[in-house]
């Protein structure tokens, strides 16, 4: 291959059928200059060790399945250029998650939290059957657009200290998604969602380390979403004494 440099990949391996606990293996990989970490993992699978298991699909940082710890930091391996790393690269499964096998983590816990924030448009109780589309100004769209860019890659869960210490914390992505719907001018479910946001492991469990925003590959800024949700929930809680349980937003 054209002048390919070799890098050593220290990859965490775990197979419940064989291993009592995770172990690491070293692979020497001839890498191309424009390769990402994922290209190297696929080279290992094809050419060196076909038993390596990892999730990936789109290879263009939009499907969110290839999140892993690269040199200790949660990254999308399809977007992480090997140019930025030295001769040794450590690849491990995402932190804070149970590991199913090799670099594959257990995702069901994340989906439970996603479901809990009711991430769908909740029509007003008396809404007539709608014909055609809502009117929504570019400004109304701007209020939630950033929070709708989440690709569910879970890097924010791997970086969040509260996720590490408080198992029932909803977590950055789920709160950002719930907040996305609360801020959508077409939605009327803020009252329902705020009950969840003020419940066990809700928005106030967040101690604002802002790591989620630092590691988010899609600039969703979940840290901002959670603080916004906190303030709006304080207002919603306060107004709930003044205004009987009516329009919550």
């Amino acid at each position, binding site marked *: 291959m054209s002048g390919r440099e070799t890098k050593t990949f220290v990859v965490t391996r775990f197979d419940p059928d064989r291993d009592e606990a995770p172990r690491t293996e070293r692979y020497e990989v001839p890498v191309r200059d424009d390769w990402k970490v994922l290209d190297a993992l696929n080279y290992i699978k094809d050419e060196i060790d076909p038993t390596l298991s990892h999730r990936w699909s789109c290879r263009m940082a939009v499907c969110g399945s290839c999140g892993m710890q690269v040199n200790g930091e949660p990254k999308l391996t399809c977007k992480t250029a090997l140019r930025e790393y030295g001769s040794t690269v450590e690849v491990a499964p995402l932190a804070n998650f149970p590991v199913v096998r090799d670099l594959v983590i257990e995702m069901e816990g994340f989906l439970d939290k996603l479901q809990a924030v009711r991430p769908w448009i909740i029509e007003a109780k008396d809404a007539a059957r709608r014909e055609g589309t809502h009117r929504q100004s570019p400004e109304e769209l701007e209020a939630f657009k950033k929070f709708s860019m989440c690709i569910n890659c879970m890097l924010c869960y791997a970086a969040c*200290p*509260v996720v590490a*210490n*408080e*198992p029932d914390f909803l977590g950055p992505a789920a709160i950002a998604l719930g907040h996305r719907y609360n801020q959508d001018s077409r939605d009327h479910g803020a009252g329902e969602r705020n009950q969840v946001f*003020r*419940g*066990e492991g*809700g928005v*106030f469990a967040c*101690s604002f380390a802002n790591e989620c925003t630092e590691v988010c590959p899609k600039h969703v800024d979940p840290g901002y979403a959670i603080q916004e949700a*906190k303030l709006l*929930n*304080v207002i919603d*809680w*306060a107004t709930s004494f003044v205004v009987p349980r009516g329009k919550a937003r």
Partner: protein
Amino acid sequence: MKTLLLRLEPVIWPLFGAGMMVAALAYPGWLLVVGLAEPLGVLSPAALSYERALGLAAHPIGRLVLLLVIALPLWGGAHHVRHVAIDFGGIARDAWFGSLCYAVALAGSVLAALAVVRL
């Protein structure tokens, strides 16, 4: 206890925010003067003399400012301490430890009110 803490969160969080803001704005100045300048003798002796200090403190605005400057940062500090404890794997004991922190802040706030009233 946990549910009580949960229900109080929407009250505690604004206090926490206000406490940080007040501390950030007021404490450096206070520490500079009372903690450093005065003990090192840099100030003119009259600055923190008993008469002047009492005059400033006993003034209605002085009383209110002192109450806020003492009480709010206590709540800010309590919330921070509670969360650092959780960060070090303390979620299991958070029910009582968190309550203890806020109890201390509450006690401090009550004492502050008394202190300001008896000036």
